[in-house]
């Protein structure tokens, strides 16, 4: 199992908001597929899957804030 983490987005950016999920729990994903879109300041940002597998958990709902380094989902 691997966690999908919100990466560093630049100096001074401590959090972002989940704009929309591109996947559902149980869905198969391939490494580098964009799985979730976040928004911060004047930017949107897609986080890719870190590995091939199945989305096991989605940990942050759309519209919710998330801190840098916080897990967004798990992939098995």
């Amino acid at each position, binding site marked *: 199992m691997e966690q999908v983490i919100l*990466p*560093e*987005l*630049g*100096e*001074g*950016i401590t959090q972002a908001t989940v*704009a929309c999920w591109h996947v559902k729990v149980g869905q198969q994903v391939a490494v*580098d597929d*964009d799985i979730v*879109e976040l*928004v*911060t*300041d*004047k*930017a*949107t*940002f*897609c986080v*890719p899957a870190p590995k091939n597998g199945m989305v096991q958990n989605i940990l942050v709902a759309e519209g919710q804030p998330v801190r840098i380094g916080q897990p967004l989902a798990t992939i098995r």
Partner: protein
Amino acid sequence: MNPTSTNIQTDQPCLLEDWGLIDYLQAWRRQQALVAEVVAGDPERLIFCEHPTVLTLGRLGKDEHILADADQLCTRGIPLVRIDRGGEVTLHAPGQLVVYPIVRLDRFGRDLKLYLAMLEQVAIDLLRGFDILADSSEGRRGVWAGGRKIASIGIGVRKWVAYHGLAVNVNTDLALFSLIRPCGLNVQMTSMQELLGHAVDMVQVKKALVEVWERHFKVHRIL
């Protein structure tokens, strides 16, 4: 990681493309295709275009930021498009220079704030070349002249390649902005034309922007 403009990888090739007057969604699709190409290793792009009048709602946009009602927009034939850009509502119209750089953020330490600030600086330096004193503003994005907003920014990022970008009001019909509350704020918009008292040659603006771009983004044009 503490990126500064000094660690920007220099001398990148960059293809210049001028799409002319192009439908907003068509341009969006072309950008998506180019993002995939740049991710795959193609040269970065600097794209110029203008859009027929359109309202676009970014991810933070709310319906109440649009002051006109649906009937009014329909009667005037102005579409409303929800898109994957940061920021709120904005308006594009002929006379506004839209700049879509397709840029690798790996070159800027993967720093979204640094890239957004650089986009603002490009607009500021562009305007200075036309004797317009503009600046960024603490706490609110965009570029401002005399307390009014003259350029807007907003980006999308996929696989650390940025798209969307910058919109500069050159000869934009400013009355159109009464349809929206730009960026969710009570701001007044201005244009180069309004500030200078005469229409500005778009060709000259594009030429000046390329020069500013080459300087800031350390690219060399391969077109």
